């Protein structure tokens, strides 16, 4: 189980370990700055942040030591094939992330249905779908069904956005 394959240092592991360590120190420092004991309470709002900060620092330091001395124990294999994956596809990742960003921008402007359609289109594209137009239509329809279900049946309000005149004309 130990790093039998000789020295193995993954930059990602070192970076993640360092982030955890720095995060822990930051949390502890902010925790200390919170005003302490108040009134009868003998433990103030500063205690838990300090405990969590120290805990994260210790874990970060531990991970860092492991990452510098032969790598994390029982790591996920670095080679995608060993995990049953294929190589990282940056485009796929970015299409999904971009879809989420687009949806965020559109939901309050163009409305929920259009935002859902855009999200569906981008994510399907990221996953390698070759029929963009069909995806867009499915996404819009799915968004519309969800919108109607929430607004009409559950009484949860969702933004109609650009489709307001259209949905309004249909009595919705």
């Amino acid at each position: 189980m130990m790093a039998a394959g000789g020295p193995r240092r993954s930059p990602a592991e070192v970076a993640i370990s360092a982030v955890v360590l720095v995060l822990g120190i930051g949390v502890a420092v902010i925790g200390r700055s919170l005003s302490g004991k108040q009134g009868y309470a003998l433990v103030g709002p500063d205690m838990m942040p300090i405990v969590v900060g120290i805990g994260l620092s210790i874990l970060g330091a531990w991970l860092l030591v492991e990452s510098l001395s032969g790598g994390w124990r029982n790591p996920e294999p670095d080679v995608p094939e060993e995990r049953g994956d294929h190589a990282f596809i940056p485009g796929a990742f970015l299409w999904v992330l971009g879809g989420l960003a687009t949806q965020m921008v559109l939901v309050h402007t163009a409305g929920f249905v259009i935002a859902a359609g855009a999200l569906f289109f981008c994510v399907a594209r990221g996953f390698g779908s070759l029929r963009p137009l069909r995806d867009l239509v499915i996404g819009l329809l799915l968004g519309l069904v969800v919108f109607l279900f929430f607004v009409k049946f559950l009484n949860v309000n969702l933004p109609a956005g650009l489709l307001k005149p259209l949905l309004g004309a249909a009595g919705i």
Partner: protein
Amino acid sequence: MSETFTALLNGFGLALAPINLLWGLIGVTLGTAIGVLPGVGPALTVAMLLPLTTKLEPVGALIMFAGIYYGAMYGGSTTTILLNTPGESASLATALEGNKMAKNGRAGPALATAAIGSFVAGSIATVLLTLLAPIVVEIAIAFGPAEYFALMIFAFVTVAAVLGSSTVRGLASLFLGLLFGLVGIDSQTGQARFAFGVPELLDGVDVVVMAVGLFAVGEALYMAAYQSRSREEMQAIRGSLWMSRSDWRRSWPAWLRATAIGFPFGTIPAGGTEVPTFLSYALEKKLTRYPEEFGNGAIEGVAGPEAANNAASAGVLVPLLTLGIPTSATAAILLAAFQNYGIQPGPLLFVSQAELVWTLIASLYVGNILLLVLNLPLIGIWVKVLEVPKPQLYAGILIFATLGAYSLHQSIVDLLVLVGFGLLGFIMRRHGFPTAPAVIGLILGPMAETQLRRALSISQGDMTVFLTRPLSAVFLVITALLVIVPFAVRHYRRRRQDAPQAA
């Protein structure tokens, strides 16, 4: 005893009312339908369907949730058997044998033993829950803050140490959850912490946003980047759905043994269903008279783990309902659902809202029967759900994920936080950090902090209170042993392995 019986009977009266029966039916159907989707585990199913209940009255909503909870568990096993992409670690054991059975053209009996086993184990475990809950409540009513705090420490340690391949990364995940739990207004003093002046953060990080972000968005990003171009082979259901006489003979002892393992493991805070399913699998492998079949599709290897899975899910409800302590990610989200209605699970719930609790427990019995009746006949529909290609599947999942986060407060900030958790989930998934401890830390952290501060206020700052109160001391000693013993064992083994080489 007779009191329990009367209360339960009363609960049945309510649970069987047509409208509640309808909510239960909707719950199990939706739970199964979403739970069947590959990559969607029970925790995510419950989180994504939470917004559906915001406008329902509490009893109906909780009944629907009980149905979703059991249905999601059930749906997962169908996916595993036919597709061999376990959406949740609890189905991993089933994947070993169930998918092999399907490949050998025995998908029908595999699905049947999973369904009937889930029903048998779920029903027995619900009976045990009915009997055990009032006893725990009686003990727990005497618990003070010190006992609760010690119990939560116990839960933290087991959840972080047991889940995943690495204790350090499990603990790191837990502490991240604890950190996110600190965000917002401190319940004791009203002071804002880690909100950085963002008004939306003053209410704290919502457990639904976190769970959906980690489980759905993180998973979608991971799948897109690393698995979107791989193809999976789905096993068609050939031949009969029915189990043969020998299938029955081999299944039922496995169901019963699995129930005996699953229920107790569910009740203690050991991360829910993962450990008991593996234990059950190991036990069946040891006891079987057909060892040559294991690894090639042994029916006991499906019957046992699936039954253990469901027995443990019922067991998880014991600490959740009687103590208010969630011991799995799914339970953490169920707790959030309770809190949405201003219902705080715990011993007092059995007194103040007895009717609601017993209706909920009665609806678990009903839900189990509904699942059995619905699922085998509807298997054709679930197979259709499984056939949705990956691009459209994940696109759809993300629509529901963003909907779940957005509809909480109609806020873009929630969507931003959701995507943030998605990126975190991606990194955690890629580097083998378990995500469940983070979700449990988020919801248990603030509760533990409250109990700690209460306990110390009562003891006037005396830290020894946790060791001088006997029950609290017992919990802490067990916790310490859980940490030390595995380390000691590993150390001892390593020394024994190294010794011959050194000589």
